[in-house]
């Protein structure tokens, strides 16, 4: 089988990219999805808060997914379900295992949209026995919202990421007792609105600077030992407490799923753990693009959709041989206070505005984000409040890029007095 554009993954990133590739003029576009339906993790995210940017209304996950699945069908995007990509090579030959056996597909261009995976108990070396009842928060979410099973009655949640907070509320609503959310850091990694609406509303305690030091139970979880942590994140002796429970949910971070990418030679970034991309969302391999959580973990699906359009459009242009000639690539560099920036490279002759998406390292109040090229300041943006859990976005216009000859650095800096006056004026 031969296709113009093959999209690996049928979640929001894959759907957005496929629709855009079709709209840009690619003749045949196919999505390969390993689940039994399109939509990805959105199908299990039955809570609302999706789509405020994209559709200007507050939708639940399944509603957001259905809108995109319908768009894909209207645009004649093809798709394979229950299909797993086993291998992709540099010549864009794809090996797919599906219901009727092994299939070989050749693509003119590829969009990687495999999303991310949850970190597990093994990934965080959580000591104790190995009873049943320890789940990742996303697995528990699938059991409850799709399969219709409640994974336990008395729950301790480890990690205060958004999925953990959402699950604290969901399990409480369905009659379970959530005893506590345990967080190692001194701040929650979840959004404030989720702490208020998922924990405070139900009087669920959030224990900051605490860790689980042991999981107890023979056969099934019987409880956890938690301990207060010192500033180096080590347990403080004498500050342990035992909490009886039958279930432990882990919400301890997400990692982009890039086994396929790295096997085919796509270079990954150490900070994001996703492919290194340019402003077209193209990886180091010609004609291989990536978007969504496989590139870096987003906090809003709306931004995934935005990114997927860039990947889908450029994948189609590549397949149609209409790709603009690349002129000069410059690098984006994370400076003081910035954890990572996507894209890592920008073509200085690009025609579209480029969004620099980044995360800051710490919580900052009254600071500014400064974009520099050498000593030259290109752009400054004042920010009243920045937190690592909320992605920052700085837009660079094609006009600004004309004056750039070497790498772009973004850093967090103090707001000086004159800047304050400008902001107040």
């Amino acid at each position: 089988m031969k296709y113009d554009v093959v999209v690996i993954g049928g979640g929001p990133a894959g759907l957005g990219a496929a629709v855009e590739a079709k709209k840009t003029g690619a003749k045949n576009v196919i999505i390969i999805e390993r689940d039994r339906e399109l939509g990805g993790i959105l199908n299990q995210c039955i809570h609302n808060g999706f789509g405020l940017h994209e559709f200007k209304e507050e939708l639940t996950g399944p509603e957001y997914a259905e809108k995109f699945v319908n768009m894909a069908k209207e645009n004649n995007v093809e798709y394979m379900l229950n299909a797993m990509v086993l291998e992709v090579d540099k010549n864009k030959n794809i090996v797919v295992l599906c219901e009727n056996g092994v299939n070989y597909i050749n693509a003119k261009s590829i969009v990687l949209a495999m999303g991310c995976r949850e970190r597990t108990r093994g990934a965080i070396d959580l000591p104790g026995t190995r009873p049943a009842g320890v789940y990742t928060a996303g697995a528990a979410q699938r059991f409850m919202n799709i399969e219709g099973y409640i994974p336990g009655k008395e729950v301790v949640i480890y990690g205060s990421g958004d999925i953990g907070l959402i699950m604290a509320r969901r399990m409480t609503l369905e009659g379970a007792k959530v005893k506590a959310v345990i967080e190692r850091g001194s701040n929650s990694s979840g959004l404030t609105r989720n702490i208020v609406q998922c924990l405070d509303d139900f009087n669920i305690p959030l224990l900051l600077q605490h860790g689980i030091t042991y999981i107890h139970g023979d056969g099934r979880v019987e409880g956890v030992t938690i301990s207060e942590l010192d500033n180096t994140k080590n347990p403080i002796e004498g500050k342990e407490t035992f909490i009886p429970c039958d279930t432990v949910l882990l919400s301890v971070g997400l990692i982009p799923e890039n086994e396929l990418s790295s096997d085919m030679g796509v270079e990954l970034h150490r900070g994001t753990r996703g492919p290194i991309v340019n402003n077209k969302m193209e990886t180091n391999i010609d004609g291989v693009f990536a978007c969504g959580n496989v590139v870096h973990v987003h906090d809003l699906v709306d931004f995934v959709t935005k990114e997927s359009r860039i990947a889908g459009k450029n994948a189609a242009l590549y397949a149609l041989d209409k790709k603009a000639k690349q002129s000069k690539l410059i690098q984006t560099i994370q400076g003081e206070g910035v954890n990572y920036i996507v894209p890592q490279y920008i073509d200085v002759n690009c025609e579209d505005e480029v969004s620099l998406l980044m995360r800051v390292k710490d919580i900052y109040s009254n600071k500014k984000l400064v974009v520099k090229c050498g000593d030259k300041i290109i752009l400054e943006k004042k920010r009243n409040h920045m937190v690592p859990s909320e992605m920052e976005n700085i837009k660079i216009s094609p006009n600004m890029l004309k004056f750039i000859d070497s790498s772009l650095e973004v850093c967090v800096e103090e707001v000086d007095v004159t800047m304050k006056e400008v902001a107040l004026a």
Partner: protein
Amino acid sequence: MQSNITCIVCPMGCRMTITKIDDRFNVEGNTCKRGEKYGIQEVTAPKRMLTSTVKIEGSVLHMLPVKTSDSIPKEMVFDLMDILNKVRVNAPIRVGDIIIEDVLGTGVNIVATRSIQKIS
């Protein structure tokens, strides 16, 4: 009467203290007008959207996700959960279909948040 709440209007998450003096509310700790408005609503008549699932028969899937068409008084959330846990619907269902009309006399409907096909 005094309440301490965290504002959720924007990412700043201001901690606000709302004090009732006679018939008026005094909001402290907010940094904008929107925070003041949210704070007063939160202490006078807090409302929430509710999303959950109901059982569905005649489909590959067992659960149909649903939501309230508008926010409902916060204290009604668990009563509504009791109602939803007794509901059974049959496939096919279209997104937006009304599952329960005017639930608990709130004027708010329970609607399906996805389409589910019938098994042929």
